[in-house]
């Protein structure tokens, strides 16, 4: 059977364990940090479900070369509880966690001792490993945080008569990416040049075929298994690779992420109400940008919905992780007197003064907010 699959691989990269998410605040940031470890369990389950022959982890697995013990201990424990004697796992140092003498990858580091024998660290540029199905893996680690040499250049070319399935694994930026010159640039035709049947690469956080015309042999970025930013295109996946007897590789993207990152712009109270009605907010990381000028009652409603979405000291928020940009939420002060009828004369005079103050551009925001405070406090007083 020429089409018979003789080799199955799981290709992942860019775990960035230990990354800090400082634009979300301590508590929310922690959720995202922990998620980076939690997704590993799902990745390994995918490997088991697809009965892959090997797992390729193509770099940037830690966010820095010397992560805190907590991170690498958990990774080691995750592997240790599996008995994958015939399913080797290959861990490749990337540009974030390069192979340095003091790094977690170095031979004397306790992480190495904690790993099962079937987990292999790519710790030399001439790394070669025989895989099932008459296949061989060539992998080249990053040994610094920046470099201008194409790592695939260290992979030997296919020798005449070599009929094995040749798999490559490196970490770096393909030539079409910005700043690639000093970030281990990878020739987009490297797979062809080096005689590889599949080239597993890491660095970009979105799932991507390189080059985009999907020429064979495939060169793939699987992307980060959990997204790390809003602008990442198609993250949260791993690649399942099937290679047939004719050495033709086929790739399927398999989703593994828990968190889904989303940017939402709300232009009116209706949009905000609609967002609040959504039932899928719990595992969403949402960058919510408000751009609306609303009268006091709607402003109050918006504040209430925002409290509901982001949570309070006493109640958890409905959105998993929220980054709120409320600079565009403004109070429409025209006609505010109608909403403040029945207040004592002094407060009516105060409203007039605050309205005047709001005409001064330097004081506008503060005066409008003061009007809203007055409105809300007075309403609470009336209840």
């Amino acid at each position, binding site marked *: 059977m020429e089409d018979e699959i003789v080799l199955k691989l799981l290709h992942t990269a860019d775990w960035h364990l230990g990354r800090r998410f400082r634009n979300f605040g301590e508590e929310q940031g922690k959720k995202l940090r922990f998620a980076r470890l939690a997704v590993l369990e799902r990745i390994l389950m995918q490997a088991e479900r697809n009965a892959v022959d090997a797992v390729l982890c193509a770099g940037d697995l830690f966010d820095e070369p010397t992560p805190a013990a907590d991170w690498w201990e958990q990774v080691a424990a995750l592997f240790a509880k599996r008995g994958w004697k015939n399913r080797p796992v290959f861990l490749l140092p990337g*540009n974030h966690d390069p192979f340095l003498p003091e790094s977690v990858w170095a031979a004397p580091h306790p992480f190495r001792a904690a790993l099962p024998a079937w987990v292999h660290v790519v710790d030399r540029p001439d790394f070669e490993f025989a895989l099932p199905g008459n296949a061989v893996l060539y992998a080249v680690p990053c040994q610094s945080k*920046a*470099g201008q040499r194409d790592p695939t250049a260290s992979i030997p070319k296919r020798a005449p008569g070599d009929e094995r399935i040749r798999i490559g694994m490196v970490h770096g930026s393909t030539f079409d990416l910005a700043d690639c010159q000093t970030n281990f640039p990878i020739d987009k035709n490297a797979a062809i040049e080096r005689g590889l049947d599949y080239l597993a690469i890491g660095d970009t956080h979105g799932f991507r075929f390189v080059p985009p015309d999907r020429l064979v042999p495939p060169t793939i970025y699987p992307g980060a298994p959990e997204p790390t930013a809003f602008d990442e295109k198609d993250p949260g996946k791993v690649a399942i690779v099937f290679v047939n007897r004719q050495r033709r590789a086929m790739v399927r993207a398999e989703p593994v992420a828990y968190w889904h990152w989303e940017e939402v712009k709300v232009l009116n109270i209706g949009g905000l109400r609609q967002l609040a009605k959504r039932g899928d907010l719990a595992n969403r990381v949402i960058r919510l940008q408000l751009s609306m000028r609303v009268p006091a009652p709607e402003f109050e409603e918006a504040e209430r919905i925002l409290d509901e979405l982001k949570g309070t000291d006493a109640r958890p928020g409905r959105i998993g992780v929220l980054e709120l940009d409320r*600079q565009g939420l403004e109070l429409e002060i025209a006609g505010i007197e109608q909403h403040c009828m029945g207040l*004592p004369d002094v407060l009516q*005079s105060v409203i007039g003064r*605050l309205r005047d103050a709001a005409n001064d551009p330097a004081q506008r925001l503060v005066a409008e907010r003061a009007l809203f405070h007055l409105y809300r406090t*007075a309403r609470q007083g009336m209840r």
Partner: protein
Amino acid sequence: MRFVKLAVESFKAIRKAELEFSPGLNVLYGPNDFGKSTIATAIQAALLVPPGSSEAVAYQPWYADAVPRVALTFVDDTGRYWKVTKEFGSEKSAELRQSKDGVTFTLDGKQREVEEKLRKLLGWGIPAPGGKSAPRGLPSSFLANVLLAPQTDVDSILTASLAEDVADTGRLRLNKALATLAQDPMLKKVLDVAQAEVTRHFTPTGQRTRKATSPFALASDAVKKLQRDLDELRGKLDESQGVEAAVIASQERCAAASAEAAEAAAHFESAKAAFARDGARREAQARLEASLVGLAGIDAQSSRVRKLEADWKVLEEKARGAKRNHEAAAAQLATAGKALQQAEESLRTAKSADAARERELRRVQLEKTLSEIGAKRQNLSAAIAAAKAASQAEQEKNAAIEAARSTRALLEKAERELNNAEVEAGLAKAILAYGRWRVAGIRARDAEKATERAAALRADAATNEEKVTALEADLKVREARIEKAKLPSDETVRALAAAERELKIAEAALGGGFSVAVRSRGQAVRASVDGKKELAEVEAETILEAQRSVKLAIGKTVDVEITAGAPEKRRAFETLKKKWAVDHEPLLTRLGFGNGDELAAAAREHAERRRALGVDRQQLDTLQKEITTLLGSADREEEQAKTLAVDAEELNRLKALIGDADEKILSRQFDVLGKNWEAQAETLLTSRTRTLDNERQKVTQASKAAGLADFKSAECTKRAAEAALGAADAKELDKELSALTAAEREAKSALSALSSAAGDAVQKAEAAVAEANDLIAEMENAAGAARTALDAAEVAAREAELELASVRGVLQTMDRGAAQSVLDARKRELAAFGDSRPTSESDVKAADQAAATKSAKLEEARQELHKLEGALSQVAGAAVREEVMRLEEALAIAKQQEREIEIDADAWKLLHDTVREVENEEGAHLGRALAAPLTRRFAEITRGRYETIKLDGELRTEGLAVAGVHVAEDEVIGALSVGTRDQLATLIRLTIAEQLKSAIVLDDQLVHTDRSRLEWFRRAFIKVSIDAQVIVLTCRPGDYLLESELQGDAPIRDVSGGTIRALDAERLFTRWDAPVAVSEVRTGSVPPPVSAGAGR
């Protein structure tokens, strides 16, 4: 605000007085005109009157030329102590000190600053001195009047108005204090919420609160931390980007240099090729010409063969003709011989024997002559033929020599080309060897450098290890020392310090000074003052001056301990002292410290040592990490050195392979080859070796051709020499032949004459014999001629045949078809060169030079890139770039959040301030605020007679309602009795002081008040004095103090369960009209009871 202490000296009637006020109700009593009002004036002077003011003239002592001095200590609303000291008259000085604990004061301001600061502190509506609106003389304002009014001026209180205040500080203060009394519930709610938010976010002075837990501080700290991290990362990013930009620029330079070098190398190769092609073209041209010559030679040889064949055929025909002529002549000669025999027979018959004998002799002679001539002629013909053959041989020799010379030239040329090819091949071989030697050299040098670097790294690691050892030893010693110190926790130290401070404050609060007169009646008395531990023996009669305590030991029977201060303060002090003795002193004693300060200092020092130890331990860790890094780097360098190492023997072997070629040329050639030098050099060597083999074959062929040509030339020369050997001069031979022909004709003529001399018969016979002889001679001549012709023809034919054979032999060695093919090929070869511009040797040299320069540039660029690659491996690259972007985003968000917090807090403040501002401007609440409590109290006093009191926004009494009838403002004064007006004015003042929580001085109030109302006021004063300090100056102490309370011994007494402080002016004041002895009061103590009141 409340007053703590007042000290007056040389002030109007008072020479000296010192008063300590309690925080509540103080009743200073004394007879009329004793100087109680002077106390009120002194307070006014201390708080309001600048030392240079005209008002100060009135402060001069009545009976002495002394400097009036006043010192007032008070506590402001925030609990801070202030002490103002002023000297009036000639000295004119002012000084303001402040203190947190009322014990230790620090200077806050002097002279003019004092008034400015005081008026700001008081907030009584009095502007700072010196301005346009600044008051002259005694400054006044609504609040100054209310709180410090001089002896009763009831009406001025009832008609006083805030509107008359120059500065609005009094109004603001009242607004603030009274605001909550008269607000709408909604307004109050808004204000309460706003106030709570403002309090949460702002300090009392309106600054954003910066406590560690405040939202501003938290947000600002977050921003600062992010900014700090970002700045740090930006530093790394700049470094990284600098290196990256340099690498990219270097890559571009390298690529450009590579392109230029390749272009220059290509140009050089192209020039070389063009030059070689030109040479080849010239050679092809020469070869073509040579081929043309060769072909022409073959054609000439062919023509010659054809001509020789024709000649030979003609000569053969001629020889056959001559043979036929010779045979015919021989036949005619035989016929003529027979005719002669017949004629001679006839003659013999006709002639006698003698005559006939003579004639016969003659005839024999003539015939012998003719025969000799014939032989000579034959020899001469052979000589002529030999001469012709020699000439022909000479011509052939010359042709052969020319052919040999031409072939030799071709051989020499081939040999030259072979030589060139050998040189080129040698050079190619040397380039290859040189390249291998040079690469090995570079590797060897790199290995040496790596070894040197490894050694340097190990040396650095060793240095660090020494540092580590020293540091570890030092740390052990220091840790042991810290461990040994065993100081209590910081919390204990702080608690101890706080307790000590509390004890000191409590002890200080006891201060006030007193003296103990000791008169011993024989027993030894030992004493210690103010807590000194050791008791010292004192004289029999002595006065002990003390601030807080005196201990006395009288003999061995009595110990007396006297402690100053109010009872509750003493109790507090004792409690604290016991607590100190139990809780803290043992610890201090155990640790060997004299006091808490020493312990705190030791604890600070200890903490500092711990911190320094921590820093050094971090340094130790850093050093150890550095050592690991350095050793790791050294290992890598050594590994690299091993990989690169080349031994000297191998280098020498490679060097020997280069031979004696010029290294400069080799270096240039090597550089030109560039990256794939070895393959190119090998290709070049192969190509040149092939060329060399071709040239060698050519030389072999040319050598063979030259040998053949030489052989032919030698053969021809030999033949020509042989031919020339027997050949005579042809012209001489022709002359000889002509002479021989003439001699033959003469002999024949004589023979003919001889014959005619015999008779007819004889004649006839003789004629016939003669004729026959003639005929025979003719026939013999003809036969001889035919024989000669035949011989000549045969020689010519044989010679022609020989020449033909020789030429044919040469022609047979020539292949015209091949020669034509070669010619065609060479024509094509020449045509293939085209018509390009010729390239000179100097062009090639220039191209070579340019290629070498570009190659050097490329090498330079590569070296630079190599160095930068090293730098690049040390920077953070894309990782830090991404981190900076993330941090920038986080910082923007944090700043936005900070701004949001600020906007929110500022909005609360704006709302709060605006509400207050509107309230103040509308002002109505002030009157409402005061009216309610005032009305209530006034109704109580008047038993409900007056229902409401109205005060306007300026707190002027607007009117009151009496049993439903309204009394207008201008009628109030007239409507009430003097006593009631006094009571109303006092109530207004008291209510305002209560709301302001401020001290109030009431000087001889309520003199027209009946007993029951006085009792009411006494209770009201006590009640008010919970919030505000009330100082009553009165000549009627019985209005406020019980009889028993007036009986105390001390001039200052806390009575009524501590709610009232009674101050006896007679015992506290020293007046100018007092006896001299009394005036000798020592500073810091009050006069002894024996002299008190002497000035009355």
